[in-house]
């Protein structure tokens, strides 16, 4: 008996490129958005790789969605190149602008239900968090609104297609305590977020052949990505204008200010890096501290 095909949805975000040489900072240390180009965010890329894994391993149907202005279709094109996605969705409407995470999750919830020819998704995958917004809330909130259980920080997973369930390993960092690796089993449908360290592995010859074939297809598709692109506005998604954009956002940004410098608790002594005599004093000081201090 043939197994039911697996439908995968990915939500991604176009973000400033923080890599050296591409990112530009203002003299005061803040991001120069005008000079910094935008890319598919690295965490979104990890989520997209997880979808590619499903494509290779389970011959899944993959749909990728993003909420943003028309330019965000660049993130979708890059994601298609990585994952060989079958559908690209752009949820774009002026009334979506200014949305906080709850109002964004509302749009994405509606978007996911349109994915894969309206069948939705058995697994939805998001990144860990965006590099610029960095809240990490949009994924789990979208999951909750979809009534999908959320499994965060997934570092490895596989699907039991006949049993319609997922086995996932997740990484939990308890800062200052220790780290934990958990193994989870859950029935589909499910929503996972890919840990930044997620990297799929392909071991068998047939998998590697499938990787090559899929990447080849992906290049061809991405050259004509607009053929795979579906753009939805608020009406197309059937969104209630009270629940999206600014009206649907409980939170507002009240003000933005420079973080005032904390009152100096230490008395700083300046040393000229070209002055070897001064540097020698520093070396002596370090050795003194090192030998005096008891081992903790």
């Amino acid at each position, binding site marked *: 008996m043939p197994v039911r095909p697996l439908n995968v949805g990915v939500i991604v975000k176009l973000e400033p490129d923080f890599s050296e040489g591409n990112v530009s900072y203002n003299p005061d240390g803040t991001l120069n958005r005008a000079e910094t180009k935008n890319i598919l965010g690295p965490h979104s890329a990890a989520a997209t790789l997880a979808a590619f894994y499903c494509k290779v391993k389970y011959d899944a149907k993959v749909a990728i969605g993003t909420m943003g202005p028309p330019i965000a279709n660049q993130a979708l094109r890059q994601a298609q190149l990585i994952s060989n996605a079958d559908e690209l969705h752009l949820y774009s409407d002026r009334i979506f602008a200014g949305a906080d995470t709850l109002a964004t*999750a509302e749009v994405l919830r509606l978007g996911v239900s349109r994915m894969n020819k309206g069948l939705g998704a058995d697994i939805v995958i998001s990144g860990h968090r965006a590099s610029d917004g960095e809240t990490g809330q949009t994924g789990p909130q979208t999951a909750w609104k979809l009534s999908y259980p959320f*499994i965060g920080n997934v570092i490895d997973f596989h699907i039991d297609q006949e049993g319609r369930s997922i086995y996932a390993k997740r990484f*939990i960092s308890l*800062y200052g305590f220790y780290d934990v690796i958990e193994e989870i089993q859950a029935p589909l449908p499910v929503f996972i977020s890919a840990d930044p360290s997620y990297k799929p592995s392909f071991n068998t010859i047939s998998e590697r052949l499938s990787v090559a074939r899929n990447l080849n297809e992906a290049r061809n598709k991405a050259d004509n990505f607009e053929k795979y692109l579906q753009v939805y506005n608020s009406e197309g998604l059937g969104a209630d204008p009270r629940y999206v954009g600014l009206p649907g956002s*409980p939170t507002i940004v009240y*003000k933005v200010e420079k*973080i005032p410098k904390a009152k100096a608790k230490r008395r700083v002594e300046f040393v000229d890096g070209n002055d070897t005599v001064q540097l020698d004093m520093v070396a002596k000081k370090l050795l003194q501290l090192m030998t005096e201090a008891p081992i*903790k």
Partner: protein
Amino acid sequence: MSGATQNSEASVGNLARIESYQHLYVVIEHEEGVPVPVSLEMLGEARRLMDNFNVRYSSNEKVVAVVLGDNVRHLCQELIRFGADVVVYADNHSLKHYTNLLYTKIICQIAEDKNVARSISPNRSENYKKPRYMFFSADNTGRHLSSTVLAQLESGLASDINKLVISDLEIRHEHKTKGQPVKFEKTLEMYRPDFSGFLWTTILCLDNRNPAIAREYHPQSCSIIPGVFEPITKEDQRTGTIIDFEPQISGEDLRIKVLSRNIIKSTIDFESCKIIVSYGRGIRDSPEDNFKLIEQFAKALNAEIGISLPISKRPYQTKDQHLLSYMIPERVIGTSGRKVSPVVYIAIGISGAVQHLAGMKESGFVVVINPDSDAAFRDECDIFIKGRLEEVLPILTEQIKKHMLMIEKRA
């Protein structure tokens, strides 16, 4: 309402209106029955905020700790000693390990439970709907939990907060107030440092008072960065109310199964080394060569090597596997990584964003090497060596080696 006049709580000040949203709920995280540090830090800040709140508004709202787990009754008294007025706990074998689905459901049950509200504040609970404020930790667990709880409670959430103020604000907002000035009382101002560490954004969670889209948004909630707030000094005499909550659990809620759970101790030991040498984007001109200088310097001092957050995102193209193994998240010092307090902390080519400073400010002695003498780090160090690491490190390393040799000879 007539009964309220006999109530000592309600008779204080002008409380004719019993509010639908009350108290500050703090979601506690623990590991095998031991509260994680941020839980006590959140309680400390909650205590300070609500003490001020109650004086200012002539009120008697509580700090309510919420704790879920298997056999967690013993934790309750400890949470009271650290500032909670009330502890609501749910003890159930199926809560032994966190699963987002079940924990979200039960926390929401507690947050909306009228009987719990009645036990917290017997004569002021008749209009109770939801908490006024709610705190979570900004770690992997709290981040996801806060998101799903607030999606269920349909209210606003700010993440990664490091400063909180409660005040009355006059707001004029296109959507929230239809452009009219409106006073929002008892508003939680939630300060969030942005990714660069130089800007502070204040987030508010506000009801829509614009009649066209009128909607109430409570609780006002946030996740709090570990390590920024101080716990209160433990008071053994503090007393409080402990509430045993019986959760409603359906079979559906149990469909996520934790098959195994393994604790991994990091092989990178920041705790027992005396000196930590950290580097940041200042290595950019020649990452591979500069890292060699840093490694030799660290070796001379027998130091462990840390990094700033941007380095963990691998901003440089390199095939040097050794260098790459020093660009991993486990080495990050700061709010997104480890919190350290060595005898000596040496920061090389790190500007000193608040997130990084939060991870090392308890260090004994701090040395900074940076060509920019205006770097934020200048106010958080004992010695600031103004210079390029390419020039400073070779000299410093040689001098340390030379002195070491002399010490060894004498011994």
